[in-house]
C-alpha cells in the first residue's frame, strides 16, 4: 500500500483498534455498522458475536477487569446503542476502562428522527468518562487513540465513540494517530511530597491503624505496595467488594470485606481504629453505613487519583491526590527511613483477632438442605482457590465475596457500583477470553441469570469453557431478605419458583447441564463441570430462605449488625 492509498473509514477503525493493541472486540451488527463488519470480514481482528448488546458491554468489562487492558464493544445505532447503556453505566460506576463504539445514522440525517436514530452521546452523557460524535472520518484514528488513552489512564472509565455511517464509508488517506494532546486531561500521578511525609509519620505512629482498600488499588496495580505496607508495619487490611484479592484473603492481617455485608471484625476494626488509611476507595454508602458514625475515632488518610473523591463523603485529615501505586511506594520509602516498630500494633492486632474469634462468618450446616455458602466454599476447595470468579448481583454476590478467599487482584469480578443483575455470565465470557490460562467460574443467581442467559449461546459458539454455578433459591433472594427483615415478611413479587430447568437450558444450548440438590454431590459436580471442555451450568438448588449475614441495615452505623454474633439468626 503506497502512502497515498485511500481506505474506508470502516477499515480505518479496524486498523486504529489494532494499533491500540486491541485483540478482541465484543459486538453485534446492524444497519449502520455493516461497513464496519465488512472491514472485520477482511481483517484478522477477533470479534465475538454476543446474543444481546448488553452482553457485549459486560463481556468487554469482564475482559478489562480480568486483564487490566481496555475492553471494546460495538453496537449498531438506536436499539443497539441503547442496549449497551446498562453496561456503560456499570463500567462508569466501577471505573472500568472500556471503549464502546456505536454506529450512527448518516451525518445529514442526524436530528431528523431517522430510522434507528437515537441521540447516543446525549443518552450516555452522564455515564461516560468522555464521548465523541465523529464528524470527520479522517479524525477516526486520532479519536480512537485518545479514547483508549482516556479510558485506561487516571481514574479509568468508559469512553463512547459514536460514528455516523457517512464516516465509515468515507475514503481518505490513513494517518496513524499522533501523541495524545489533551490540555484538559492530565491526571495527577505523584502525591504531594509534604503530604507523603505527613502520611508516613501518621502511619508509623498509629497504634490502631486499618488499611481500607478499594478498587483503585487494583486499577493502579498497587497490590504489592499494599502488601508491603501492611506486612512491614503490621496493619490489618479490609477491602471493599471492588478490591477483593487486592490483599490476600488468606493472610492473618486480612479482615475480609467491610460494610453492609462485611465481616463483623472488619466493621469493628474500622469503628475502633485511630487511623483509617483509605486507598483507592470512595466511602460508598454500602461501606460507611451512617456517615456521621463512621470511623468516629479515626484520623482519615485518603489516597485517590480522583480529586473529586477526596472530601466528597468524608473529609480526610490527610488528603493525597495521586496514583495509589506511586503514592504508596513513596510512603514506603519514607517509612523505611524511620525506626522499625512492628510491635507497636501488637495489642491492636490481638483485639482484632479477638473479634475475629468471637464473630467469624458462619452459617447453619445441618438441616439437610444445601447451604449456598457451602457451595461457594466447595468452589474454593475444588479449585484450590485458583480461579477467576465473576458474580451476579444479590445474595449470590455477597456469599461469593464472603466464602471464597481471594489472593490475587483481578480474581474477583463483580458489578459493585451499579449492582447489575445479569452481569455474571457475559462478564465471565469476557474474562475467560482475556485469561484463557485460568478457570473462570460465574457464581450466579437464578433471577440474575435469566436476564442474560442467552449468552450461553456465545459461550458455546466460541468454546469458552466457563462454569456457571447458580445458587438457585428460586427467589429474588436479596430483595426477599429485605422483605423478610424490614417489611414484615411480605414477599411481594420476589418468588420466582416458576422457572425453566436450567440444566436442560444448558443442554439445549449444547453446554453441559447438571442439577445438584445435596451437599455430597457438590464437589463432584464442580469437578465434572471444570473438566468438561464445554461451558457448563450447575443448578445448585440451595436452601430457599437463607440470609446473608452479617447485615448492616441501610443508613445505620456499621457496628449495628444483624447476625454478627455466632449462631445463625433464626427467622423472627
Amino acid at each position, binding site marked *: 500500500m503506497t502512502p497515498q492509498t485511500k481506505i474506508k473509514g470502516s477499515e480505518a477503525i479496524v486498523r486504529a483498534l489494532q494499533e491500540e493493541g486491541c485483540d478482541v472486540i465484543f459486538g453485534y451488527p446492524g444497519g449502520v455498522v455493516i461497513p464496519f463488519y465488512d472491514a472485520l470480514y477482511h481483517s484478522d481482528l477477533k470479534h465475538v458475536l454476543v446474543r444481546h448488546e448488553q452482553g457485549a458491554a459486560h463481556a468487554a468489562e469482564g475482559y478489562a477487569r480480568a486483564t487490566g487492558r481496555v475492553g471494546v464493544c460495538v453496537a449498531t445505532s438506536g436499539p443497539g446503542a441503547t442496549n449497551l447503556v446498562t453496561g456503560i453505566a456499570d463500567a462508569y460506576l466501577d471505573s472500568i476502562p472500556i471503549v464502546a463504539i456505536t454506529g450512527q445514522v448518516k451525518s445529514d440525517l442526524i436530528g431528523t428522527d431517522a430510522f434507528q436514530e437515537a441521540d447516543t*452521546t*446525549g443518552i450516555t*452523557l*452522564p455515564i461516560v*468518562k*468522555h*464521548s465523541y*460524535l465523529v*464528524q470527520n472520518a479522517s479524525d477516526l484514528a486520532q479519536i480512537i487513540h485518545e479514547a483508549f488513552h*482516556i479510558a485506561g489512564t487516571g481514574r479509568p472509565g468508559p469512553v463512547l465513540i459514536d460514528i455516523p455511517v457517512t464516516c465509515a464509508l468515507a475514503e481518505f488517506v490513513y494517518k496513524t494517530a499522533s501523541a495524545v494532546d*489533551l*490540555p*484538559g*486531561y492530565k491526571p495527577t500521578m505523584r502525591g504531594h511530597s509534604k503530604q507523603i511525609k505527613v502520611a508516613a509519620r501518621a502511619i508509623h505512629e498509629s497504634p490502631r491503624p486499618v488499611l481500607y482498600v478499594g478498587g483503585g488499588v487494583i486499577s493502579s496495580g498497587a497490590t504489592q505496595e499494599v502488601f508491603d505496607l501492611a506486612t512491614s508495619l503490621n496493619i490489618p487490611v479490609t477491602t471493599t467488594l471492588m478490591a477483593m484479592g487486592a490483599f490476600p484473603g488468606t493472610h492473618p492481617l486480612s479482615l475480609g470485606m467491610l460494610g453492609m455485608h462485611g465481616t463483623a471484625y472488619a466493621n469493628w476494626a474500622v469503628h475502633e481504629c485511630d487511623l483509617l488509611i483509605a486507598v483507592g476507595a470512595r466511602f460508598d454508602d454500602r461501606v460507611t453505613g451512617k456517615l456521621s458514625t463512621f470511623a468516629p475515632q479515626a484520623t482519615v488518610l485518603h489516597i485517590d487519583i*480522583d*480529586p*473529586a473523591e477526596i*472530601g*466528597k463523603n468524608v473529609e480526610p485529615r490527610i488528603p493525597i491526590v495521586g496514583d495509589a501505586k506511586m503514592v504508596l511506594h513513596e510512603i514506603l520509602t519514607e517509612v523505611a527511613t524511620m525506626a522499625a516498630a512492628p510491635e507497636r500494633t501488637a495489642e491492636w492486632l490481638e483485639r482484632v483477632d479477638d473479634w475475629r474469634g468471637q464473630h467469624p462468618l458462619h452459617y447453619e450446616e445441618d438441616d439437610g438442605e444445601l447451604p449456598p455458602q457451602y457451595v461457594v466454599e466447595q468452589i474454593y476447595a475444588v479449585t484450590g482457590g485458583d480461579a477467576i470468579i465473576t458474580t451476579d448481583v444479590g445474595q449470590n454476590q455477597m456469599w461469593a465475596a464472603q466464602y471464597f478467599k481471594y489472593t490475587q487482584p483481578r480474581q474477583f469480578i463483580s458489578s459493585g457500583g451499579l449492582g447489575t443483575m445479569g452481569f455474571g455470565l457475559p462478564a465471565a465470557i469476557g474474562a475467560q477470553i482475556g485469561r484463557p490460562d485460568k478457570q473462570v467460574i460465574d457464581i450466579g443467581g437464578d433471577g440474575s441469570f435469566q436476564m442474560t442467559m442467552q449468552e450461553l449461546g456465545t459461550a458455546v459458539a466460541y468454546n469458552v469453557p466457563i462454569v456457571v454455578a447458580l445458587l438457585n433459591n428460586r427467589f429474588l433472594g436479596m430483595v426477599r431478605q429485605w422483605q423478610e427483615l424490614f417489611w414484615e415478611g411480605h414477599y411481594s413479587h420476589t418468588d420466582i419458583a416458576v422457572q425453566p430447568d436450567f440444566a436442560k437450558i444448558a443442554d439445549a444450548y449444547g453446554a453441559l447441564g447438571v442439577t445438584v440438590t445435596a451437599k455430597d454431590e457438590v464437589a463432584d459436580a464442580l469437578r465434572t463441570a471444570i473438566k468438561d471442555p464445554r461451558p457448563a451450568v450447575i443448578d445448585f438448588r440451595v436452601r430457599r430462605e437463607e440470609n446473608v449475614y452479617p447485615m448492616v441495615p441501610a443508613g445505620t452505623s456499621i457496628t449495628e449488625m444483624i447476625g454478627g454474633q455466632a449462631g445463625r439468626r433464626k427467622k423472627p
Partner: protein
Amino acid sequence: MKHTLSVLVENKPGVLTRVAGLFARRGFNIDSLVVGRSEDPRLSRMTITIDGAEHPIDQVTKQLHKLINVVKIRELDAESMVARELALIRVSAEGAKRTEALQIAEIFKAKVVDVDRRTMTLEITAAPDRLAAFESLLQPLGVNEVVRTGLVAIGRGRS
C-alpha cells in the same frame, strides 16, 4: 454566597451540554452561564455563577475539572474580578414618564437603543449591584421586558 467561576474549555461540539449536564446530574444550580470565544480560537471561556451556600464549591470545581474538555478553572471573588452584565430593558415611556426614563438612563450611563410612541428600550452594561439599582428605579415607570446576558467576569491585572 454567589461564586463566580471562569472556566476555559476546548472549543469542541457538545462541551456546553457536558457542563450543563454535569450541573444537572450533580444537583448544582446554575445562576447564570455565559459562553463565548476566548483570545485563543481553540478555546472558549465560560463565566458560571452559582449559589455556593447550597453546594460545596469545591465539589463543583473538582467535578468540572474531570470533564476532559475543561482546561482551566479559576474561581473569582469580588476583589479579584471585574464583572459586568449587559441588559436591555423596555420601559413604558408615555408623556412625563419619557423624561423620567431619560434622566435615570443618563445617571446610569445607559443608552437608548429603541423608542416608539409608548415605550423606550434602554441598554446598560454594569456590575450586578448597579444593574439591580437601575432596574428598581425603572420599576415605577412600568418595566415591560428585561433581557440580560448573564454575568461575564475577568480577573484583575496583577500589578
